[in-house]
């Protein structure tokens, strides 16, 4: 596998992310090289506790390194060798790095923020790990962004929409966001170190703080946001409101966001912004490798897998796999 890190993210819950991950793990189990597995935060976990549905356990193949919290490590159902315990605490205790001595099941939890995940992936590489798989969450509740990884696999399914065109449209929107162009050169590093506020980016790539506490204050501020040019950098969350505001400016605006997970706008508003000549770039981008679909939703709805797959492939030009089928092949 040529990527050093790969995140598997679900568009929503029950899109078959875990099946996809287990499938990948089985494939990797047959490959040479050292692989590692972790997760982003505990976001999914807590919601599962609310629903009282158990979080699906991951089957770790023999020899694989995995990282999970102390709490989940103690509940593991496999033989594993402890390699390291982090000094940093997460909500579920310190993070334990271990190697599976025999295949078995474990609950995954991991660093709760992007920086922690980045450092963890770096540390695993020094242990000779070739690729780290990240069980990712796409949620505004998660502080960590899966775009820290080089590559992504996106899971989608009937739970997102019971109507195939609608499901394709929604998925396509997220794929479009993932594919947003990355800011290059020195500017990337400069943007990366900024984590809040609203900034103007000048013609010669300098950053000027517009001294707005948040994007929600845009309209109320009397200052001319575009006196330094038409590029704006917003590292925090970006909503419909911002796009609507930017759309009505005299000149087309280039908006730079941290990564695609920071965009919380609805597709309609986002595309309207683009049609008006606006453009969006990201500081961090991951390559989208493939899409998995789950034609079944938890409320019993079952879509036609072949039709769905066909529609997705045609629209998105990506490999599409049905998780229920890949689940059976072993």
């Amino acid at each position, binding site marked *: 596998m040529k990527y050093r890190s790969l995140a598997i993210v679900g568009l929503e819950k029950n899109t078959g992310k875990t099946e996809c991950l287990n499938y990948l793990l089985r494939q990797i189990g047959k490959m040479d090289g050292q692989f590692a597995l972790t997760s982003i935060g505990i976001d999914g976990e807590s919601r599962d506790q609310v629903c009282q549905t158990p979080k699906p356990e991951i089957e770790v193949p023999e020899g694989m390194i995995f990282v999970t919290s102390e709490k989940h490590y*103690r509940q593991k159902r496999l*033989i594993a*060798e*402890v*390699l390291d315990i982090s000094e940093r605490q997460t909500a579920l205790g310190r993070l334990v790095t271990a190697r599976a001595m025999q295949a078995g099941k474990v609950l995954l939890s991991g660093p709760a923020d992007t920086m922690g995940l980045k450092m963890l992936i770096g540390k695993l590489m020094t242990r000779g790990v070739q690729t780290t798989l990240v069980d990712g969450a796409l949620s505004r509740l998660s502080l960590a962004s899966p775009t820290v990884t080089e590559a992504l696999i996106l899971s989608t399914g009937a739970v997102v929409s019971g109507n195939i065109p609608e499901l394709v449209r929604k998925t396509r929107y997220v794929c479009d966001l993932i594919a947003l162009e990355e800011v290059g050169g020195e500017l990337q590093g400069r943007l990366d170190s900024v984590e809040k506020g609203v900034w103007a980016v000048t013609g010669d790539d300098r950053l000027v703080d517009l001294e707005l506490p948040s994007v929600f204050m845009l309209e109320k501020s009397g200052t001319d946001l575009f006196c330094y040019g038409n590029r704006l950098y917003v590292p925090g969350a970006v909503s419909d409101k911002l796009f609507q505001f930017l759309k009505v400016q005299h000149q087309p605006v280039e908006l730079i966001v941290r990564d695609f997970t920071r965009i919380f706008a609805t597709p309609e508003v986002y595309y309207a912004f683009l049609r008006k000549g606006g453009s969006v770039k990201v500081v961090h981008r991951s390559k989208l490798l493939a899409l998995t679909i789950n034609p079944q939703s938890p409320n019993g709805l079952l879509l036609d897998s072949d039709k769905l797959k066909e529609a997705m492939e045609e629209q998105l030009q990506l490999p599409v796999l049905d998780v229920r089928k890949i689940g059976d092949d072993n």
Partner: protein
Amino acid sequence: MTIREAIQNIQGFRYMMEQLNVRSAAGRRFLLDIVWMNSPEEVKRELERVVKMGVLLQLPERKTDIETLGVRLMQLRDIRGTILRVSAGCVLDDLELFELKNFALLLTEIRHIAGDWGIVSIPVLDPVVALLDPEGNRIPHFYIYDIYSPELAALRAEIRVKKQQGEAEEEIEKIYVRSVEIEDQVRESLSEELHGHSEILQQALEAVALLDVVLAKAEQAADMQLVCPELEGEEAETITLEGLFHPQVRMKLRQEGKEFQPVDLKLNAEATVITGANMAGKTVLLKSVALAQYLVQFGFFVPASRAKMSLLGEVMMSIGDEQNELSGLSSFAAEMIRMNEMVGKVKDGRKILVLIDELARTTNPVEGRAIVNGVVDFLTKHRTMAMVTTHYNGIIAPCRRLRVKGFVEDKIKGEVTLKNINEYIDYSLEEDRGNEVPHEAMRIAWMLGVDTGILQTAERFLTDRQEV
């Protein structure tokens, strides 16, 4: 008092502790728990460690060792909680066993480096290593190894075979449950054996924490040019400080491109009244003395070029800008309550150092002067080592008098401005025979550029009064 409490009292002391490059969490905890020492032997022992480490830091052939030691100390975890569980005889889990193994291996390595330095004696943990590293890999990983139990090894092999043969989950589950039971038995017996070593584990953790602190102290002493204080005998009550400075103030001055002028000072068991113009550094002087005394009591080198010091029971300070304004008392009331507390301690026969900055300055000069006389008289009569700064003249109570030389217009060439005014001040102390205070307040106010109208009026009042 511990360092944890002491850093609340003195800003300059907190600064020094924050600047210490203690590498491990265990070392940081150890540092904060160091207790104010009263016996010269105890302090001497701690100072000697720092002296020895300082010598090693100078040796080029030790450079690699010191660097490796630094890295190993950084890797050290504070496993006090785990060691407490060992002592309590708890059954440890894999994570705790991992921590202990990691610690024992690291400590063995540290012992290999620093064991023969004669600074800290580091216990041998070979039996712990042997227990937790049964395969002798010397790699800090841990799990319940097959080698601990032939039965466990057999069960694990069986699980592997059955999985490959595709046996039913329930079958494998049964064997797995059995293997987990045996793992638990192994953990139990390991914990029991470790329990026998709990004392030595405890000692080992404290030893490396101490080593970490000593290394940081010696590095700081070299960095800040601190000196090892000589200690007076148990009964003595004198402090001799040559080239005394305040590291935090010095650092701030250096940032502005200025130098701190060190001061020589000798204190005996009597009240010393210090006079001097405003801006003459009287407050910083008191703070520097307090800092030096705190440092020696906790076994640190002191910021001076030479120091000979007595150990004391306590330093009582009354320095305006460090009081708690939230107590609801007026500054005068708070000061008087502090004075009374000090008097009580002196009467109890406690060996203390009293440092009072501008006593009774917030009240009228007539009564203020009387209060200063009263306090100075009390301190001298009780042979209490004390420094009292004041702007009041007419301090006639028996005491020793020192005066900051203060403003010297021809100290350097050029015009005096607000920016360079510090350079015109000679901060050294001289014996003062009379009881007059320097009259430099007006001059300094002029230089600071205070409104001309006001100053002219003030001068008129001054001459009028002198004529009267």
